[in-house]
Protein backbone atom coordinates (compact mmCIF):
# COMPACT_ATOMS: atom_id res chain seq x y z
CA UNK A 1 0.00 0.00 0.00
CA UNK A 2 1.43 3.36 -0.95
CA UNK A 3 1.37 6.28 1.48
CA UNK A 4 -1.28 8.99 1.37
CA UNK A 5 1.37 11.65 1.81
CA UNK A 6 5.04 11.24 1.25
CA UNK A 7 7.67 13.89 1.77
CA UNK A 8 11.03 13.22 0.23
CA UNK A 9 14.14 15.20 1.13
CA UNK A 10 12.23 18.39 1.81
CA UNK A 11 14.20 21.49 2.73
CA UNK A 12 13.39 25.06 3.73
CA UNK A 13 15.51 27.87 5.08
CA UNK A 14 14.69 31.44 6.03
CA UNK A 15 17.68 33.64 5.33
CA UNK A 16 20.44 31.87 7.26
CA UNK A 17 18.12 29.79 9.42
CA UNK A 18 17.66 26.23 8.22
CA UNK A 19 14.15 25.38 9.43
CA UNK A 20 13.79 22.03 7.66
CA UNK A 21 17.07 20.45 6.65
CA UNK A 22 16.39 17.24 4.76
CA UNK A 23 13.29 15.46 5.92
CA UNK A 24 11.78 12.31 4.48
CA UNK A 25 8.69 10.58 5.82
CA UNK A 26 5.52 8.77 4.73
CA UNK A 27 2.05 9.09 6.18
CA UNK A 28 0.06 5.93 5.46
CA UNK A 29 -3.65 6.32 4.91
CA UNK A 30 -5.77 6.01 8.06
CA UNK A 31 -3.01 6.68 10.58
CA UNK A 32 -2.63 9.20 13.34
CA UNK A 33 0.96 10.30 12.85
CA UNK A 34 2.54 12.64 15.37
CA UNK A 35 5.43 15.00 14.77
CA UNK A 36 7.19 16.05 17.94
CA UNK A 37 10.33 18.01 18.68
CA UNK A 38 11.59 20.96 20.70
CA UNK A 39 10.59 24.54 19.92
CA UNK A 40 11.97 25.68 16.60
CA UNK A 41 12.49 22.09 15.37
CA UNK A 42 10.64 22.88 12.14
CA UNK A 43 7.25 21.28 12.77
CA UNK A 44 5.07 24.21 11.78
CA UNK A 45 7.32 24.85 8.79
CA UNK A 46 6.63 21.31 7.57
CA UNK A 47 2.87 22.07 7.78
CA UNK A 48 3.44 25.29 5.85
CA UNK A 49 5.31 23.34 3.18
CA UNK A 50 2.60 20.68 2.90
CA UNK A 51 -0.16 23.28 2.61
CA UNK A 52 1.81 25.43 0.19
CA UNK A 53 2.10 28.56 2.33
CA UNK A 54 5.81 28.56 1.43
CA UNK A 55 7.45 26.95 -1.61
CA UNK A 56 9.94 24.14 -1.01
CA UNK A 57 13.63 24.92 -1.32
CA UNK A 58 14.20 21.31 -2.31
CA UNK A 59 12.66 17.85 -2.27
CA UNK A 60 9.15 16.76 -3.20
CA UNK A 61 5.84 16.23 -1.48
CA UNK A 62 3.42 13.77 -3.02
CA UNK A 63 -0.22 13.45 -2.02
CA UNK A 64 -2.51 10.71 -3.35
CA UNK A 65 0.27 9.75 -5.76
CA UNK A 66 0.69 13.11 -7.43
CA UNK A 67 3.09 15.91 -6.63
CA UNK A 68 1.87 19.03 -4.86
CA UNK A 69 4.63 21.15 -6.40
CA UNK A 70 3.37 24.42 -7.86
CA UNK A 71 -0.12 24.19 -6.37
CA UNK A 72 -1.50 27.09 -4.31
CA UNK A 73 -2.83 26.48 -0.81
CA UNK A 74 -6.46 26.58 -2.01
CA UNK A 75 -5.74 23.96 -4.66
CA UNK A 76 -4.21 21.69 -2.05
CA UNK A 77 -7.33 22.22 0.08
CA UNK A 78 -9.40 21.21 -2.96
CA UNK A 79 -7.39 17.99 -3.11
CA UNK A 80 -8.33 17.18 0.49
CA UNK A 81 -5.70 18.70 2.78
CA UNK A 82 -6.94 20.80 5.71
CA UNK A 83 -5.06 22.32 8.62
CA UNK A 84 -5.39 24.21 11.87
CA UNK A 85 -3.03 26.93 13.02
CA UNK A 86 -0.78 27.05 16.05
CA UNK A 87 -1.36 30.84 16.24
CA UNK A 88 -5.14 30.72 15.71
CA UNK A 89 -6.48 32.05 12.42
CA UNK A 90 -10.14 32.46 13.28
CA UNK A 91 -12.32 34.77 11.19
CA UNK A 92 -13.13 37.09 14.08
CA UNK A 93 -15.36 39.19 11.80
CA UNK A 94 -17.83 36.29 11.54
CA UNK A 95 -19.99 34.13 13.74
CA UNK A 96 -18.92 30.68 14.83
CA UNK A 97 -21.28 29.07 12.31
CA UNK A 98 -20.14 31.33 9.46
CA UNK A 99 -16.54 30.35 10.17
CA UNK A 100 -17.47 26.73 9.57
CA UNK A 101 -19.58 27.63 6.53
CA UNK A 102 -16.44 29.02 4.87
CA UNK A 103 -15.13 25.48 5.11
CA UNK A 104 -17.94 24.36 2.78
CA UNK A 105 -16.59 26.67 0.09
CA UNK A 106 -14.83 23.91 -1.78
CA UNK A 107 -17.88 21.67 -1.73
CA UNK A 108 -20.25 24.31 -3.12
CA UNK A 109 -20.38 26.28 -6.33
CA UNK A 110 -22.69 29.32 -6.21
CA UNK A 111 -21.01 32.06 -8.23
CA UNK A 112 -21.19 35.83 -8.10
CA UNK A 113 -24.03 36.09 -10.59
CA UNK A 114 -26.25 33.45 -9.01
CA UNK A 115 -25.63 35.06 -5.63
CA UNK A 116 -26.46 38.54 -6.93
CA UNK A 117 -29.88 37.47 -8.20
CA UNK A 118 -30.61 35.09 -5.29
CA UNK A 119 -31.15 32.23 -7.72
CA UNK A 120 -33.31 29.46 -6.22
CA UNK A 121 -30.57 26.86 -6.56
CA UNK A 122 -28.17 29.22 -4.79
CA UNK A 123 -30.56 29.57 -1.86
CA UNK A 124 -31.00 25.80 -1.69
CA UNK A 125 -27.24 25.34 -1.70
CA UNK A 126 -26.91 27.97 1.03
CA UNK A 127 -29.33 25.98 3.19
CA UNK A 128 -27.32 22.80 2.62
CA UNK A 129 -24.09 24.64 3.53
CA UNK A 130 -25.64 25.83 6.79
CA UNK A 131 -26.94 22.37 7.67
CA UNK A 132 -23.62 20.67 7.03
CA UNK A 133 -21.72 23.36 8.96
CA UNK A 134 -24.04 22.88 11.94
CA UNK A 135 -23.38 19.15 11.87
CA UNK A 136 -19.63 19.86 11.94
CA UNK A 137 -20.10 22.16 14.94
CA UNK A 138 -21.97 19.37 16.71
CA UNK A 139 -18.98 17.06 16.24
CA UNK A 140 -16.88 19.43 18.37
CA UNK A 141 -19.75 20.31 20.73
CA UNK A 142 -19.93 23.95 19.73
CA UNK A 143 -23.43 24.02 18.24
CA UNK A 144 -24.74 26.11 21.12
CA UNK A 145 -22.29 28.91 20.29
CA UNK A 146 -23.23 28.87 16.58
CA UNK A 147 -24.51 32.43 16.43
CA UNK A 148 -21.90 34.05 18.70
CA UNK A 149 -19.05 36.02 17.22
CA UNK A 150 -16.09 33.69 16.79
CA UNK A 151 -13.72 36.01 18.64
CA UNK A 152 -15.82 35.74 21.79
CA UNK A 153 -14.96 32.04 22.25
CA UNK A 154 -12.27 31.11 24.77
CA UNK A 155 -9.01 29.95 23.16
CA UNK A 156 -9.66 26.27 23.72
CA UNK A 157 -12.97 26.48 21.87
CA UNK A 158 -11.39 28.53 19.09
CA UNK A 159 -9.06 25.58 18.52
CA UNK A 160 -12.09 23.28 18.30
CA UNK A 161 -13.72 25.75 15.91
CA UNK A 162 -10.69 25.53 13.64
CA UNK A 163 -11.08 21.77 13.62
CA UNK A 164 -14.80 22.03 12.81
CA UNK A 165 -13.98 24.40 9.97
CA UNK A 166 -11.52 21.85 8.59
CA UNK A 167 -14.06 19.03 8.89
CA UNK A 168 -16.50 21.06 6.80
CA UNK A 169 -14.05 20.71 3.89
CA UNK A 170 -14.32 16.90 4.19
CA UNK A 171 -10.55 16.46 4.27
CA UNK A 172 -8.64 13.28 3.52
CA UNK A 173 -5.65 14.54 5.48
CA UNK A 174 -5.98 16.78 8.53
CA UNK A 175 -2.98 18.63 9.91
CA UNK A 176 -3.37 19.71 13.55
CA UNK A 177 -0.79 22.18 14.88
CA UNK A 178 -0.72 22.01 18.69
CA UNK A 179 -4.49 21.55 19.10
CA UNK A 180 -4.17 20.95 22.85
CA UNK A 181 -2.36 24.20 23.61
CA UNK A 182 -4.40 26.08 26.20
CA UNK A 183 -6.73 23.15 26.95
CA UNK A 184 -7.19 21.80 30.44
CA UNK A 185 -6.80 18.12 31.30
CA UNK A 186 -10.42 17.19 30.61
CA UNK A 187 -10.58 19.13 27.38
CA UNK A 188 -7.34 17.52 26.19
CA UNK A 189 -8.78 14.07 26.86
CA UNK A 190 -11.91 14.98 24.92
CA UNK A 191 -9.70 16.20 22.09
CA UNK A 192 -7.91 12.87 22.06
CA UNK A 193 -11.22 11.04 21.73
CA UNK A 194 -12.30 13.43 18.97
CA UNK A 195 -9.09 12.76 17.02
CA UNK A 196 -9.56 9.02 17.33
CA UNK A 197 -13.17 9.31 16.15
CA UNK A 198 -11.99 11.28 13.13
CA UNK A 199 -9.53 8.53 12.31
CA UNK A 200 -12.42 6.11 12.61
CA UNK A 201 -14.18 8.14 9.93
CA UNK A 202 -11.23 7.55 7.64
CA UNK A 203 -9.45 10.87 8.06
CA UNK A 204 -5.69 10.59 8.18
CA UNK A 205 -4.17 12.82 10.81
CA UNK A 206 -0.81 14.51 11.15
CA UNK A 207 -0.50 15.86 14.67
CA UNK A 208 2.02 18.35 16.01
CA UNK A 209 1.71 18.45 19.78
CA UNK A 210 3.80 19.10 22.86
CA UNK A 211 1.45 17.33 25.28
CA UNK A 212 3.20 13.95 25.49
CA UNK A 213 0.38 12.04 27.20
CA UNK A 214 -1.91 12.92 24.34
CA UNK A 215 0.66 12.14 21.63
CA UNK A 216 1.70 8.81 23.09
CA UNK A 217 -1.89 7.85 23.83
CA UNK A 218 -3.41 8.24 20.39
CA UNK A 219 -0.65 8.09 17.78
CA UNK A 220 0.03 5.10 15.61
CA UNK A 221 3.53 6.33 15.00
CA UNK A 222 5.71 9.28 15.95
CA UNK A 223 8.29 11.28 14.04
CA UNK A 224 10.84 13.11 16.17
CA UNK A 225 12.34 16.23 14.71
CA UNK A 226 15.32 18.18 15.96
CA UNK A 227 16.97 21.16 14.27
CA UNK A 228 15.06 20.46 11.11
CA UNK A 229 16.17 16.85 10.88
CA UNK A 230 14.53 13.52 11.63
CA UNK A 231 15.94 12.19 14.88
CA UNK A 232 13.84 9.05 15.11
CA UNK A 233 10.58 7.58 13.99
CA UNK A 234 8.51 4.61 15.00
CA UNK A 235 5.85 3.48 17.43
CA UNK A 236 5.27 5.63 20.55
CA UNK A 237 7.00 3.03 22.71
CA UNK A 238 10.02 2.71 20.47
CA UNK A 239 10.44 6.47 20.25
CA UNK A 240 10.09 6.99 23.99
CA UNK A 241 12.82 4.45 24.64
CA UNK A 242 15.16 5.75 21.95
CA UNK A 243 18.27 7.02 23.80
CA UNK A 244 18.90 9.75 21.21
CA UNK A 245 15.41 11.12 21.70
CA UNK A 246 15.59 10.99 25.44
CA UNK A 247 18.84 12.89 25.35
CA UNK A 248 18.08 15.51 22.70
CA UNK A 249 14.44 16.15 23.35
CA UNK A 250 12.94 14.74 26.49
CA UNK A 251 16.23 15.34 28.31
CA UNK A 252 16.25 18.94 27.29
CA UNK A 253 12.83 19.39 28.83
CA UNK A 254 13.93 17.80 32.07
CA UNK A 255 16.83 20.23 32.16
CA UNK A 256 14.52 23.13 31.52
CA UNK A 257 12.18 22.11 34.27
Amino acid at each position, binding site marked *: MSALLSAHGIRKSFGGVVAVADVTFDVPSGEVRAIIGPNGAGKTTIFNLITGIFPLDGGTIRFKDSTLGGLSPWQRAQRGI*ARTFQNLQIFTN*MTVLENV*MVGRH*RKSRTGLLAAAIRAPW*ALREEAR*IREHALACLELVNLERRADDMAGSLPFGQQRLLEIARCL*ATEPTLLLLDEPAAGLNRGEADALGRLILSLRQRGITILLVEHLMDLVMGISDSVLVLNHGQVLAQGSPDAVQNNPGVVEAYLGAEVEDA
Partner: protein
Amino acid sequence: MRGWAFIGGLSVLALIPVVVKTPSYLDVLIYVGIYTIVTVGLCLLTGYAGQISLGQAAFYGLGAYTSAILTVSYAIPSGLALIAGMLVTAAVAYGFGIPILKLKGHYLAMATLAFGIIVYLAFVEFKDFTGGPSGIPGVPPFSLFGFAFDSDIKRYYLTTGAALLTLVVARNVVNSRIGRALRSIHGSEVAAETLGVDTARHKLQVFALSAAMASLAGSLYAHHLGLVSPAAFTFVTSVEFVVMAAVGGLASVWGAPFGAATVTILTEGIRRVMPLLLSYASGEHEVIAYGIILIAIMIFMPEGLVVGLRASFWSRRRARG
Protein backbone atom coordinates in the same frame (compact mmCIF):
# COMPACT_ATOMS: atom_id res chain seq x y z
CA MET B 1 -41.57 44.18 10.26
CA ARG B 2 -38.59 44.60 7.95
CA GLY B 3 -40.93 44.48 5.01
CA TRP B 4 -42.90 47.42 6.39
CA ALA B 5 -39.74 49.40 7.08
CA PHE B 6 -38.71 48.77 3.50
CA ILE B 7 -42.08 49.88 2.07
CA GLY B 8 -42.07 52.93 4.36
CA GLY B 9 -38.57 53.85 3.20
CA LEU B 10 -39.58 53.44 -0.44
CA SER B 11 -42.62 55.69 0.03
CA VAL B 12 -40.49 58.40 1.61
CA LEU B 13 -38.03 58.21 -1.28
CA ALA B 14 -40.89 58.32 -3.79
CA LEU B 15 -42.51 61.35 -2.14
CA ILE B 16 -39.37 63.45 -1.74
CA PRO B 17 -39.66 65.21 -5.14
CA VAL B 18 -43.26 66.12 -4.34
CA VAL B 19 -42.14 67.92 -1.19
CA VAL B 20 -38.74 69.18 -2.27
CA LYS B 21 -39.38 71.77 -4.94
CA THR B 22 -36.09 73.70 -4.85
CA PRO B 23 -34.16 72.51 -7.93
CA SER B 24 -30.77 72.69 -6.27
CA TYR B 25 -31.94 70.41 -3.45
CA LEU B 26 -33.22 67.86 -5.93
CA ASP B 27 -29.86 68.06 -7.68
CA VAL B 28 -28.11 67.22 -4.42
CA LEU B 29 -30.39 64.19 -3.96
CA ILE B 30 -29.58 62.98 -7.46
CA TYR B 31 -25.88 63.10 -6.55
CA VAL B 32 -26.59 61.25 -3.33
CA GLY B 33 -28.05 58.43 -5.44
CA ILE B 34 -25.10 58.44 -7.83
CA TYR B 35 -22.52 58.45 -5.02
CA THR B 36 -24.41 55.77 -3.12
CA ILE B 37 -23.78 53.42 -6.04
CA VAL B 38 -20.02 54.03 -5.94
CA THR B 39 -19.96 53.78 -2.16
CA VAL B 40 -21.75 50.43 -2.14
CA GLY B 41 -19.04 49.03 -4.43
CA LEU B 42 -16.31 50.43 -2.25
CA CYS B 43 -18.03 48.98 0.79
CA LEU B 44 -17.95 45.50 -0.76
CA LEU B 45 -14.30 45.92 -1.68
CA THR B 46 -13.02 47.49 1.52
CA GLY B 47 -15.58 46.65 4.19
CA TYR B 48 -16.11 43.04 3.22
CA ALA B 49 -13.01 41.92 1.34
CA GLY B 50 -10.60 44.24 3.18
CA GLN B 51 -8.97 45.66 0.02
CA ILE B 52 -8.30 49.38 -0.34
CA SER B 53 -8.88 51.48 -3.46
CA LEU B 54 -7.82 55.09 -3.83
CA GLY B 55 -8.58 54.97 -7.54
CA GLN B 56 -12.33 54.53 -7.62
CA ALA B 57 -12.78 57.87 -9.44
CA ALA B 58 -10.99 56.32 -12.42
CA PHE B 59 -13.69 53.66 -12.78
CA TYR B 60 -16.36 56.29 -12.25
CA GLY B 61 -14.69 58.31 -15.02
CA LEU B 62 -14.37 55.33 -17.35
CA GLY B 63 -18.12 54.81 -17.11
CA ALA B 64 -18.84 58.48 -17.67
CA TYR B 65 -16.52 58.75 -20.67
CA THR B 66 -17.70 55.50 -22.24
CA SER B 67 -21.30 56.68 -22.04
CA ALA B 68 -20.43 60.17 -23.30
CA ILE B 69 -18.29 58.98 -26.22
CA LEU B 70 -20.68 56.24 -27.34
CA THR B 71 -23.81 58.39 -27.16
CA VAL B 72 -22.33 61.65 -28.50
CA SER B 73 -19.91 60.43 -31.17
CA TYR B 74 -21.55 57.15 -32.18
CA ALA B 75 -25.22 57.78 -31.35
CA ILE B 76 -25.44 54.45 -29.54
CA PRO B 77 -28.52 54.11 -27.27
CA SER B 78 -27.66 55.26 -23.76
CA GLY B 79 -28.75 51.99 -22.13
CA LEU B 80 -26.34 50.00 -24.29
CA ALA B 81 -23.60 52.56 -23.71
CA LEU B 82 -24.09 52.23 -19.96
CA ILE B 83 -23.77 48.45 -20.11
CA ALA B 84 -20.76 48.72 -22.41
CA GLY B 85 -19.19 51.08 -19.89
CA MET B 86 -19.70 48.63 -17.06
CA LEU B 87 -18.22 45.76 -19.06
CA VAL B 88 -15.21 47.77 -20.24
CA THR B 89 -14.57 49.13 -16.76
CA ALA B 90 -14.90 45.72 -15.11
CA ALA B 91 -12.48 44.30 -17.69
CA VAL B 92 -9.98 47.11 -17.05
CA ALA B 93 -10.26 46.53 -13.30
CA TYR B 94 -9.76 42.81 -13.79
CA GLY B 95 -6.68 43.22 -15.97
CA PHE B 96 -5.17 45.87 -13.76
CA GLY B 97 -6.12 43.93 -10.63
CA ILE B 98 -4.13 40.83 -11.60
CA PRO B 99 -0.77 42.42 -10.76
CA ILE B 100 -1.82 44.92 -8.09
CA LEU B 101 -4.23 42.92 -5.92
CA LYS B 102 -1.20 40.86 -4.92
CA LEU B 103 -0.19 43.95 -2.95
CA LYS B 104 -1.49 44.63 0.52
CA GLY B 105 -2.35 47.63 2.67
CA HIS B 106 -0.43 50.80 1.89
CA TYR B 107 1.12 49.31 -1.23
CA LEU B 108 -2.29 48.53 -2.67
CA ALA B 109 -3.45 52.04 -1.75
CA MET B 110 -0.44 53.52 -3.59
CA ALA B 111 -0.97 51.35 -6.67
CA THR B 112 -4.65 52.22 -6.98
CA LEU B 113 -3.78 55.87 -6.40
CA ALA B 114 -1.26 55.73 -9.24
CA PHE B 115 -3.80 53.98 -11.45
CA GLY B 116 -6.30 56.76 -10.76
CA ILE B 117 -3.78 59.40 -11.74
CA ILE B 118 -2.84 57.57 -14.95
CA VAL B 119 -6.47 57.28 -16.01
CA TYR B 120 -7.04 60.95 -15.20
CA LEU B 121 -4.06 61.90 -17.37
CA ALA B 122 -5.44 59.71 -20.14
CA PHE B 123 -8.71 61.65 -20.01
CA VAL B 124 -6.73 64.89 -20.36
CA GLU B 125 -4.27 63.71 -23.00
CA PHE B 126 -6.24 61.55 -25.45
CA LYS B 127 -7.91 64.62 -26.85
CA ASP B 128 -9.22 62.94 -29.99
CA PHE B 129 -11.47 60.70 -27.91
CA THR B 130 -12.00 62.65 -24.72
CA GLY B 131 -11.97 66.26 -25.82
CA GLY B 132 -9.00 66.97 -23.56
CA PRO B 133 -9.30 69.26 -20.54
CA SER B 134 -12.61 70.75 -21.68
CA GLY B 135 -14.18 67.33 -22.07
CA ILE B 136 -17.25 66.24 -24.00
CA PRO B 137 -20.32 68.52 -23.92
CA GLY B 138 -23.80 67.72 -25.14
CA VAL B 139 -24.31 64.31 -23.55
CA PRO B 140 -28.02 63.56 -24.06
CA PRO B 141 -30.30 62.62 -21.16
CA PHE B 142 -30.45 58.93 -20.35
CA SER B 143 -33.26 57.20 -22.17
CA LEU B 144 -34.70 53.73 -22.02
CA PHE B 145 -37.10 52.25 -24.58
CA GLY B 146 -37.85 55.72 -25.89
CA PHE B 147 -38.48 57.24 -22.47
CA ALA B 148 -36.06 60.12 -21.84
CA PHE B 149 -35.07 61.06 -18.30
CA ASP B 150 -35.01 64.72 -19.27
CA SER B 151 -35.96 66.45 -16.01
CA ASP B 152 -34.48 66.47 -12.52
CA ILE B 153 -37.54 64.74 -11.11
CA LYS B 154 -37.27 61.88 -13.60
CA ARG B 155 -33.53 61.66 -13.02
CA TYR B 156 -34.10 61.59 -9.27
CA TYR B 157 -36.22 58.47 -9.71
CA LEU B 158 -33.68 56.98 -12.12
CA THR B 159 -30.67 57.42 -9.84
CA THR B 160 -32.57 56.49 -6.68
CA GLY B 161 -33.89 53.36 -8.39
CA ALA B 162 -30.41 52.43 -9.63
CA ALA B 163 -29.01 53.00 -6.14
CA LEU B 164 -31.65 50.74 -4.59
CA LEU B 165 -30.99 48.05 -7.16
CA THR B 166 -27.28 48.25 -6.45
CA LEU B 167 -27.94 47.96 -2.73
CA VAL B 168 -30.12 44.90 -3.21
CA VAL B 169 -27.52 43.21 -5.43
CA ALA B 170 -24.81 44.00 -2.89
CA ARG B 171 -26.90 42.65 -0.04
CA ASN B 172 -27.53 39.43 -1.98
CA VAL B 173 -23.82 39.00 -2.66
CA VAL B 174 -22.94 39.69 0.97
CA ASN B 175 -25.40 37.07 2.23
CA SER B 176 -24.00 34.34 0.02
CA ARG B 177 -21.13 31.93 -0.31
CA ILE B 178 -19.27 34.66 -2.23
CA GLY B 179 -19.82 37.27 0.47
CA ARG B 180 -18.60 34.83 3.08
CA ALA B 181 -15.49 34.12 1.03
CA LEU B 182 -14.82 37.87 0.81
CA ARG B 183 -15.17 38.30 4.56
CA SER B 184 -12.93 35.31 5.17
CA ILE B 185 -10.21 37.03 3.12
CA HIS B 186 -10.59 40.05 5.35
CA GLY B 187 -10.56 37.90 8.49
CA SER B 188 -7.53 35.77 7.62
CA GLU B 189 -6.28 35.39 4.09
CA VAL B 190 -4.10 32.40 4.92
CA ALA B 191 -6.95 30.57 6.66
CA ALA B 192 -9.29 31.33 3.76
CA GLU B 193 -6.76 29.86 1.30
CA THR B 194 -6.20 26.69 3.30
CA LEU B 195 -9.97 26.15 3.43
CA GLY B 196 -10.10 26.14 -0.37
CA VAL B 197 -10.96 29.77 -1.13
CA ASP B 198 -9.18 31.01 -4.24
CA THR B 199 -8.44 34.37 -2.64
CA ALA B 200 -6.79 35.92 -5.70
CA ARG B 201 -9.81 35.17 -7.86
CA HIS B 202 -12.32 36.45 -5.33
CA LYS B 203 -10.38 39.67 -4.81
CA LEU B 204 -10.32 40.23 -8.56
CA GLN B 205 -14.03 39.54 -8.82
CA VAL B 206 -15.03 42.00 -6.12
CA PHE B 207 -12.61 44.60 -7.48
CA ALA B 208 -14.23 44.26 -10.91
CA LEU B 209 -17.70 44.37 -9.35
CA SER B 210 -16.91 47.56 -7.42
CA ALA B 211 -15.48 49.04 -10.62
CA ALA B 212 -18.63 48.13 -12.55
CA MET B 213 -20.74 49.83 -9.90
CA ALA B 214 -18.57 52.96 -10.07
CA SER B 215 -18.93 52.85 -13.85
CA LEU B 216 -22.72 52.65 -13.60
CA ALA B 217 -22.67 55.72 -11.36
CA GLY B 218 -20.35 57.50 -13.80
CA SER B 219 -22.71 56.88 -16.71
CA LEU B 220 -25.67 58.25 -14.76
CA TYR B 221 -23.55 61.25 -13.82
CA ALA B 222 -22.63 61.95 -17.45
CA HIS B 223 -26.26 61.82 -18.54
CA HIS B 224 -27.39 63.96 -15.63
CA LEU B 225 -24.85 66.74 -16.06
CA GLY B 226 -24.74 66.54 -19.85
CA LEU B 227 -21.00 67.06 -19.78
CA VAL B 228 -17.93 65.06 -18.83
CA SER B 229 -14.54 66.60 -18.16
CA PRO B 230 -11.43 65.28 -16.40
CA ALA B 231 -11.79 67.62 -13.42
CA ALA B 232 -14.59 65.44 -12.05
CA PHE B 233 -12.36 62.35 -11.87
CA THR B 234 -9.33 63.45 -9.91
CA PHE B 235 -7.69 62.02 -6.83
CA VAL B 236 -9.93 64.28 -4.74
CA THR B 237 -13.00 62.46 -6.05
CA SER B 238 -11.46 59.10 -5.10
CA VAL B 239 -10.80 60.39 -1.60
CA GLU B 240 -14.35 61.69 -1.42
CA PHE B 241 -15.65 58.17 -2.18
CA VAL B 242 -13.46 56.66 0.52
CA VAL B 243 -14.74 59.25 3.01
CA MET B 244 -18.33 58.40 2.07
CA ALA B 245 -17.68 54.72 2.63
CA ALA B 246 -15.96 55.40 5.96
CA VAL B 247 -18.70 57.75 7.14
CA GLY B 248 -21.39 55.25 6.17
CA GLY B 249 -19.56 52.50 7.95
CA LEU B 250 -17.75 49.75 6.11
CA ALA B 251 -19.36 46.91 8.01
CA SER B 252 -22.68 47.10 6.19
CA VAL B 253 -23.73 48.09 2.68
CA TRP B 254 -26.75 49.86 4.19
CA GLY B 255 -24.45 52.55 5.56
CA ALA B 256 -23.56 53.62 2.02
CA PRO B 257 -26.56 55.91 1.36
CA PHE B 258 -26.02 57.63 4.72
CA GLY B 259 -22.33 58.14 4.02
CA ALA B 260 -23.05 59.43 0.52
CA ALA B 261 -25.77 61.77 1.79
CA THR B 262 -23.76 63.14 4.71
CA VAL B 263 -20.67 63.89 2.65
CA THR B 264 -22.60 65.28 -0.34
CA ILE B 265 -24.68 67.62 1.78
CA LEU B 266 -21.68 68.66 3.85
CA THR B 267 -19.62 69.32 0.71
CA GLU B 268 -22.42 71.37 -0.74
CA GLY B 269 -22.58 73.35 2.49
CA ILE B 270 -18.83 73.91 2.55
CA ARG B 271 -18.90 75.00 -1.08
CA ARG B 272 -21.47 77.66 -0.23
CA VAL B 273 -20.06 78.80 3.09
CA MET B 274 -16.33 78.77 2.36
CA PRO B 275 -16.26 81.66 -0.14
CA LEU B 276 -18.12 83.76 2.40
CA LEU B 277 -15.52 83.05 5.05
CA LEU B 278 -12.43 83.18 2.87
CA SER B 279 -12.62 85.30 -0.24
CA TYR B 280 -9.79 83.38 -1.93
CA ALA B 281 -11.22 79.93 -1.10
CA SER B 282 -11.51 77.55 -4.02
CA GLY B 283 -12.54 73.93 -4.50
CA GLU B 284 -9.25 72.65 -3.16
CA HIS B 285 -10.38 73.40 0.38
CA GLU B 286 -12.78 70.50 0.19
CA VAL B 287 -9.80 68.20 0.52
CA ILE B 288 -9.01 69.70 3.90
CA ALA B 289 -12.59 69.18 5.00
CA TYR B 290 -12.52 65.54 3.84
CA GLY B 291 -9.32 65.01 5.76
CA ILE B 292 -10.85 66.43 8.91
CA ILE B 293 -14.03 64.39 8.52
CA LEU B 294 -12.03 61.21 7.93
CA ILE B 295 -9.86 61.78 10.99
CA ALA B 296 -12.88 62.60 13.16
CA ILE B 297 -14.66 59.43 11.99
CA MET B 298 -11.61 57.27 12.68
CA ILE B 299 -11.33 58.70 16.19
CA PHE B 300 -14.95 58.93 17.28
CA MET B 301 -16.88 56.44 15.17
CA PRO B 302 -14.48 53.95 13.61
CA GLU B 303 -17.42 51.79 12.56
CA GLY B 304 -19.08 54.63 10.71
CA LEU B 305 -21.86 57.08 11.32
CA VAL B 306 -24.75 54.62 11.38
CA VAL B 307 -23.26 52.22 13.89
CA GLY B 308 -21.71 55.07 15.87
CA LEU B 309 -24.92 57.06 16.22
CA ARG B 310 -26.97 53.97 16.98
CA ALA B 311 -24.52 52.96 19.69
CA SER B 312 -24.57 56.39 21.33
CA PHE B 313 -28.38 56.49 21.04
CA TRP B 314 -28.73 53.18 22.83
CA SER B 315 -26.20 53.99 25.50
CA ARG B 316 -27.98 57.27 26.24
CA ARG B 317 -31.32 55.46 26.45
CA ARG B 318 -29.80 52.92 28.77
CA ALA B 319 -28.24 55.65 30.89
CA ARG B 320 -31.66 57.20 31.28
CA GLY B 321 -32.99 53.85 32.39
